[in-house]
C-alpha cells in the first residue's frame, strides 16, 4: 500500500477502500510488458494498410495513378475515392443547430483541403511492402489558394474551403442575455482586449491503431481499435458500412493514452473495416508520428476578443466575448460543439457576473480538423475568464486574489444558474482559493517578488480559479445541444461462486486506472478486497452498452454505475445470508468477505452465499438465481469540479525566458476515490496545461504543414507540483465524486500566463499569447519599452 503523505484527501477516508491510495492493480502487468495494444495483435493472414496523404493544403486532384503500386510485390489492393462511392463522408455526431455538415471524406476524391488528407489506401502483405507501394502511387495535384487562419478566413473574398458554401462559416453560437453596452455605460471602467488560444497537436504515447477482420463463416466483423468509446465506434461503423450492428464487435484493448482524439470517428476506422469486408483478410494500420501531426484531430485554436466592465470595488458587472474558432477543413465528431457549447456556457467560470453575451463563429480553414482534446472547450473558457479577471484586477490596481473573492458565486447560492446557460451544482471557491494561497505562501511570495524586483529580477505570481462541468450527463441536455450520444454509463457486476468479482464496465481506461478505482468502489459495497475484483472493459461483445471515457466522467458516472449495481448485489447477498443463518437481512453485516449476524456468532462467507445463489440450493425459490446486477446509471445533471492553482514564474528580461519555479494545485473533485491516482491525473493534466502555456503549438509553415517535432513538456521542463484537495461532495451522484482528469489542462494555462503578465505588467506588458516562447516574451518587453514614456 502506498499511502500518500501530505495530501489532504488521504486523511478523509470515507469508506474502507474509497479514499485509500491503493497502488494500481494493473501496473504489474503493464510494467512487465504484458500489456496488449492493437499493434501487438497479429491475426492469421494479416494484411497491412498504408495511406497516401496529401502534401498540399488545398489542391484539385487531377489524377491518381495506382497502376505501379497495384502491381508491386506483396500488394493485395489499392483503393481510391472511386472505390468508396458507397461510403459517405464521416459523419460528426455533435451538430449544434444550424451547423453546416462537412464531414471528413473517407478518401479525398476531387479536392484535398488539408495537408495529410488521405487520397489512397494501399494494402499489402507486410507493412514495409504497403509503404513501398504507397510511394509508387502518383497523384497529380493542381494547387488552389489556401487559408489557414480563422480570422483571415472570415474576411470578405477570403479563399473558400468548401466551394459550394457561401463563406467559411461552419456554425455560429450565441449565448447570454445581452445588455453589455448598457451595463458598461453604468460601470466605473470598461475595456477590451484580445486573447489567442493556440492550436495544439495531441500526442498519445500510443498512436491511433486499427486492426479490422471480417469472418466470412460467422459473418462477424471485429474491429480492434485504440479507442475511448468502443460502443460508439461500433454504432458509427455499423451506420457508415450499413453493417448489422449486432454482428459488429469492437475491441479496444490496452490503450496508451486517449486525451480526446481517440474518441473521435475517423476515416481510417471506416476504411479498414471496409477493406477487410472486401478482401476477407484482416487489415491493420498503426499511425506514424508524422501522420499523427496531420491526420489525428487537433485541439483549441480560438481567436477571442473580450469586453469587460467593472466597478472600482472590483466587482465585474458585465462581460462580452467574441471568438473565431478554427475547426479545420471538415467537422470532426464533436467539431461544432466543443468550440461553442463547451466554451461559451462555461465562460463565466466561478463568478456571479450578471450581464453576459458571447458569440462563437466556427470557421473552416485548410487545416487538420479540430476536436475535443483534454478539457475540450473548458480550457478555452477558463483561460478567457481567468485572464479577464486578472486583467480587471490589474487595471484597477487590486490584488487578483481579492478581485476573485469579490466575484465568486457563494456556497449558499448553489445550485447557481449563470447567464451563460450553465448551472453550477456545488463549490466553495473562496475556501479552495484560500487553501491554495496558504499552500503557496502567497503573502511570502508577494514579499519575495517585491524584494526580487528591487534586485532587478522579475518574479510573477499567477492565480487561476476554474470550474469545469463534467460527467455528461443527462440525455435531455445532450439532445438540446444536438449531441447524438447518451449520458449514462453501464456496469455489470457479478460475484462468482468462489467469491471473486467480475465487473464489466462501459467506461474505458486508457491509462486512468479504472481497474483500481472501480474495484475500490465495488469493494466498499461488497466487502471484498479490490485484488479479488477484476474490471473488464473495451469489448462490445462482453460489456453492456456504454458511453466510454471522456469529459472526466468515468468515476462520477461509470463509478456510480458500479456502486449502484454492487449495492444491489450486497442487498441480495444479505437476503441470502439471512436465510442461511436464519435471521433477517437487516441484522447482516457485510465486511471482509464475511456476512456476519450482528450481535451473534453466526456468519457465512461470501463464497458460501455465492454458491447458494448460483445453485439455488438452500434458499427459497423466490430469491431467484445468481449474483449479478446490471446498472445503466443515468445522471440527471453534471457535476462542477473546481480548483485554484497558483504559479510562480521568473522572467529573464534579457532573453525573455520564462522559468516556472513553483506550482500549487488545489482541486476539488468532490470525494476522492484514490488520492494517489488523483495526484497522477493532476500531474498529467498540469504537464499538458503548462505545455500549452509555455511550449506547445502546431506552428504551421507557409505551406500548411505543422512542425514535425513540436515541443512537448518533458520531466526536466516541469517543476515539482504541490497538490492538495478541498472536498465538496456533489449532490449529482451517489459517490459525491466529480471529474478530475482535465483539471490540470484547464487551470494550468491561465495560472502560468497570469504569472508571466504579473511579472511584466509594471514594464508595460499587458498582453501575452501562448506559448510564452522566450523570443515572444522578449519582443513583448521591447515593444512595451518603446511605448513607455521615458
Amino acid at each position: 500500500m502506498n499511502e500518500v503523505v501530505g495530501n489532504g484527501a488521504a486523511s478523509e477516508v470515507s469508506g474502507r477502500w474509497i479514499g485509500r491510495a491503493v497502488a494500481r492493480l494493473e501496473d504489474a502487468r503493464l510494467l512487465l510488458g504484458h500489456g496488449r495494444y492493437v499493434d501487438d495483435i497479429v491475426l492469421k493472414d494479416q494484411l497491412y494498410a498504408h495511406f497516401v496523404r496529401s502534401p498540399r493544403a488545398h489542391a484539385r486532384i487531377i489524377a491518381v495513378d495506382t497502376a505501379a503500386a497495384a502491381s508491386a510485390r506483396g500488394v493485395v489492393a489499392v483503393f481510391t475515392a472511386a472505390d468508396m462511392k458507397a461510403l459517405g463522408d464521416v459523419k460528426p455526431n455533435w451538430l449544434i443547430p444550424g451547423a453546416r455538415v462537412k464531414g471528413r471524406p473517407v478518401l479525398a476524391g476531387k479536392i484535398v483541403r488539408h495537408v495529410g488528407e488521405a487520397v489512397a489506401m494501399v494494402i499489402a502483405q507486410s507493412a514495409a511492402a504497403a509503404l513501398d507501394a504507397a510511394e509508387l502511387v502518383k497523384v497529380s495535384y493542381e494547387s488552389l489558394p489556401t487559408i489557414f487562419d480563422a480570422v483571415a478566413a472570415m474576411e470578405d473574398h477570403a479563399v473558400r474551403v468548401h466551394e459550394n458554401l457561401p463563406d467559411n462559416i461552419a456554425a455560429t453560437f450565441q449565448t447570454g442575455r445581452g445588455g453589455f453596452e448598457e451595463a458598461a455605460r453604468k460601470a466605473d471602467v470598461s475595456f477590451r482586449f484580445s486573447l489567442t488560444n493556440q492550436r495544439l497537436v495531441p500526442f498519445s504515447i500510443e498512436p491511433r491503431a486499427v486492426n479490422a477482420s471480417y469472418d466470412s463463416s460467422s459473418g462477424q466483423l471485429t474491429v480492434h481499435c485504440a479507442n475511448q468509446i468502443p460502443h460508439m465506434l461500433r454504432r458509427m461503423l455499423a451506420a457508415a458500412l450499413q453493417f448489422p450492428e449486432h454482428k459488429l464487435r469492437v475491441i479496444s484493448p490496452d490503450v496508451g493514452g486517449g486525451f480526446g482524439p481517440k474518441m473521435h470517428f475517423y476515416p481510417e476506422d471506416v476504411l479498414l473495416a471496409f477493406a477487410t469486408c472486401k478482401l476477407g483478410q484482416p487489415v491493420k494500420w498503426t499511425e506514424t508520428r508524422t501522420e499523427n501531426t496531420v491526420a489525428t484531430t487537433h485541439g483549441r485554436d480560438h481567436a477571442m476578443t473580450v469586453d469587460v466592465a467593472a466597478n472600482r470595488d472590483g466587482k465585474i458587472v458585465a462581460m462580452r466575448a467574441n471568438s473565431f474558432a478554427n475547426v479545420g477543413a471538415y467537422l470532426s465528431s464533436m467539431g461544432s460543439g466543443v468550440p461553442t457549447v463547451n466554451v461559451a456556457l462555461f465562460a463565466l467560470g466561478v463568478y456571479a457576473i450578471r450581464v453576459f453575451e458571447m458569440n462563437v463563429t466556427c470557421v473552416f480553414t485548410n487545416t487538420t480538423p479540430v476536436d475535443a482534446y483534454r478539457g475540450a472547450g473548458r480550457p478555452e473558457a477558463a483561460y478567457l475568464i481567468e485572464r479577464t479577471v486578472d486583467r480587471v484586477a490589474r487595471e484597477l490596481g487590486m490584488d487578483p486574489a481579492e478581485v476573485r473573492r469579490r466575484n465568486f458565486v457563494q456556497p449558499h447560492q448553489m445550485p447557481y444558474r449563470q447567464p451563460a446557460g450553465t448551472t453550477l451544482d456545488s463549490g466553495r471557491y473562496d475556501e479552495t482559493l484560500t487553501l491554495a494561497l496558504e499552500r503557496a505562501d502567497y503573502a511570502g511570495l508577494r514579499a519575495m517578488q517585491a524584494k526580487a524586483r528591487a534586485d532587478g529580477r522579475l518574479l510573477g505570481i499567477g492565480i487561476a480559479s476554474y470550474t469545469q462541468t463534467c460527467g455528461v450527463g443527462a440525455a435531455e441536455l445532450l439532445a438540446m445541444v444536438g449531441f447524438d450520444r447518451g449520458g449514462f454509463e453501464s456496469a455489470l457486476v457479478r460475484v462468482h461462486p468462489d467469491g471473486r468479482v467480475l465487473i464489466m464496465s462501459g467506461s474505458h481506461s486508457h491509462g486512468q486506472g479504472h481497474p483500481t478505482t472501480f474495484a475500490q468502489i465495488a469493494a466498499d459495497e461488497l466487502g471484498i478486497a479490490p485484488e479479488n475484483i477484476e474490471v473488464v472493459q473495451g469489448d462490445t461483445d462482453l460489456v453492456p452498452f456504454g458511453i466510454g471515457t471522456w469529459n472526466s466522467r468515468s468515476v462520477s458516472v461509470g463509478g456510480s454505475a458500479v456502486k449502484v449495481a454492487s449495492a444491489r448485489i450486497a442487498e441480495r447477498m444479505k437476503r441470502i445470508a439471512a436465510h442461511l443463518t436464519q435471521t433477517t437481512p437487516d441484522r447482516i453485516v457485510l465486511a471482509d468477505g464475511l456476512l456476519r449476524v450482528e450481535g451473534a456468532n453466526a456468519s457465512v462467507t461470501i463464497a458460501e452465499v455465492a454458491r447458494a445463489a448460483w445453485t439455488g440450493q438452500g434458499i427459497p425459490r423466490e430469491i431467484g438465481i445468481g449474483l449479478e446486477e446490471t446498472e445503466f446509471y443515468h445522471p440527471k445533471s453534471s457535476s462542477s469540479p473546481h480548483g485554484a492553482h497558483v504559479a510562480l514564474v521568473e522572467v529573464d528580461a534579457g532573453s525573455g525566458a520564462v522559468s516556472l519555479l513553483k506550482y500549487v494545485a488545489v482541486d476539488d473533485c468532490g470525494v476522492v476515490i484514490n488520492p494517489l491516482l488523483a495526484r497522477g491525473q493532476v500531474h498529467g493534466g498540469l504537464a499538458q496545461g503548462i505545455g500549452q502555456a509555455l511550449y506547445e503549438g502546431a506552428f504551421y509553415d507557409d505551406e500548411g504543414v505543422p512542425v514535425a517535432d513540436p515541443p512537448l513538456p518533458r520531466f526536466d521542463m516541469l517543476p515539482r507540483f504541490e497538490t492538495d484537495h478541498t472536498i465538496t461532495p456533489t449532490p449529482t451522484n451517489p459517490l459525491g465524486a466529480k471529474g478530475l482528469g482535465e483539471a490540470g489542462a484547464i487551470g494550468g494555462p491561465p495560472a502560468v500566463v497570469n504569472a508571466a503578465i504579473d511579472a511584466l505588467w509594471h514594464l508595460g506588458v499587458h498582453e501575452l499569447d501562448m506559448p510564452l516562447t522566450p523570443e515572444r516574451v522578449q519582443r513583448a518587453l521591447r515593444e512595451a519599452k518603446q511605448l513607455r514614456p521615458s
Partner: protein
Amino acid sequence: MIPVAFDYLRPRTLAEASHALVACAGDAVILSGGQSLMTDLKLRRKRPRTVIDLQSVEGLCAIDVGDGIARIGAMARQADIVQQQDVAGQFPLLVEIASAAADPMVRRRGTLVGALCAVEPGGDWLCGCLAMDGIVEIAGAVGKRDVPLTEFIHGARATTLGHDEIAVAVRLRAAPRRARSAYRKVKHIAVGWSIASVAAVLDIDDGGRCRFARVAVSGATAWPQRLPLLEAALGALDLSRRDHLRDAVAASLSSVQFSGDYYASAGYRAERLATLVEQTIAELAG
C-alpha cells in the same frame, strides 16, 4: 518508420570497408552510432542502397590519451570517452559537453566521430572539438589524409569526405595547463539541440591579457564554426572592459550566417549567441 530496403554490410577491416564503399560508387552510407542516420533512414530522408556498419571493424574503438593529444577512434562511444580518467584531466570540455549533449542513452550508443560527420547545425560535440583544434583522420581507397575540422565541415550536414572515404579517428589538442575552458548551451526546447552554444578555451596571463583563445559556436549559426576574428581580437582587448568585449563579439558575428525556426528565429538566436559568447568569455577571464 520503415526504411527503404538496403543491403547491410558489416566489414571486419578498414580495407574491406573501403572496398565496399568503392564498390557502391557513392550509393552507401557509413553507420557508426546511428544517432542521426537511423532517424534519416526511418523517415526515408536517406535512401542508400547499402549501409556499411563499422561496429566490427577492428581498432576503431580506441581512445588514446597522450600528453596534450587525444586520439579517439570512429567507434568510441561518447559515454566511454568521458569516463576515462585522463580525458577528464586534460580535456575538461569533453566532460562538460557530455552533460549537455542529448541524454545517457544517446551517449551510450553515439560516437564522437559520428557526431562530427553528421554536422548537425546545433551539434554539441562538433562545437567542442572545433575549440580543441580537432583534426580528422580519413582513410580512403587511395590512402590516408588528415584534415582539420575547420576544413572538414562543408556546411550544414555536409563534410569534405569523398565517397570512398571513412573518418577513422579525430585527434584533439588539450589546452595548456593554465588555460580555462567552458561549454555553454541554450537548449532548443523541442529537440534538445542548441539554439546557441559556445565552446571556449582561453589562456589568460597574470596581467589579465588573453595569450590565446579558441572559440567555437553552434546552434545559432547555420553550422558549427570557429570565430577567428574574435580569437584574434581578444589578445588586444582589456577584458575588464565589457563594452569592448561586446563590440568584439558583435564584430566577429557580423559576417556569420544564422538560421532559425518556429521556436527561435535566426535574429533571436544571433542575439542569444552574442550574449552567451560575451558572458562565457567574461566568466573565463574573470
